[in-house]
């Protein structure tokens, strides 16, 4: 079993707001992130897949295929977007780093067949990241 990690970056805007909360609760729980005009981040995404090395190619997965899936399923949908307004998963869910990592997993997992998805690691900034293993 070998693990392969591909790193990519995207930039997006978002805000945190729960319509079930009062304005005071939203401000208390989400702080500056509750500003409804939104703000943005440069996200760094690390996708790790795992599998046996194909003896003919020496690959766990064809990196070109992984890049194509990542671009099509994740980066095209998230890069330079407003997550709350343009990404369907976040019409009802708050686009926290946790929920974005889960949404990325759910987008990628069904599209991978040669290698299996092991981990999605999403950095919102260099000092903050979330790992999701599909648990």
């Amino acid at each position, binding site marked *: 079993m070998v693990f392969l990690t591909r790193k990519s970056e995207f930039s997006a805007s978002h805000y945190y707001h729960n319509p079930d909360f009062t304005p005071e609760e939203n401000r208390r729980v989400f702080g500056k992130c509750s500003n409804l005009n939104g703000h943005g981040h440069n996200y760094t995404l690390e996708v790790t897949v795992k599998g046996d090395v194909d003896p003919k190619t020496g690959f766990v997965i064809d990196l070109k295929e992984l890049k194509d899936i990542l671009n099509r399923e994740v980066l095209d949908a998230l890069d330079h977007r407003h997550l709350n307004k343009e990404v369907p998963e976040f019409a009802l869910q708050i686009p*926290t780093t*946790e929920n974005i990592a*889960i949404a990325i997993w759910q987008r990628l997992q069904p599209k991978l067949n040669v290698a299996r998805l092991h981990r999605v690691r999403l950095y919102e900034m260099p000092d903050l990241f979330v*790992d*999701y293993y599909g648990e």
Partner: protein
Amino acid sequence: MKAYLTRRYRIAASHRLHNDEFSAERNRETYGKCNNPHGHGHNYGIEVTVSGEVNRQTGMVCNLGDLDECVNREIVERFDHENLNDTPEFAGIVPTTENLAEVVFNILKRSFTAAHLEKVRIEETANNSFEYAGGADALRTR
């Protein structure tokens, strides 16, 4: 759905690796330059990983402000710009980064209860890092 959240903090501190039970030669042999009598310092990077179910109402494992407040109060204010050897936490304990990781983990385990503490990872320099995720081993002097 369970997610793992990691937040990075920084402290600058000095230390000297020295065991009173060792002879001067054995201290030098064991700790090398780190045994120099007046100590030396590092910029430590401390990564704290917590885990838990993502709360449906907030989309979060835990409130980042609560984690920051706790780690800043319990770790950063306690150790930043200090000589680790002089802090009560290292009385009788050699302040290696292994031991610092254990000390930080044990303090946070007691003081942060809003999510499960998974792991503490400390970078002493860009080339050396140490992880502690709890365990049965008691803290000991080396």
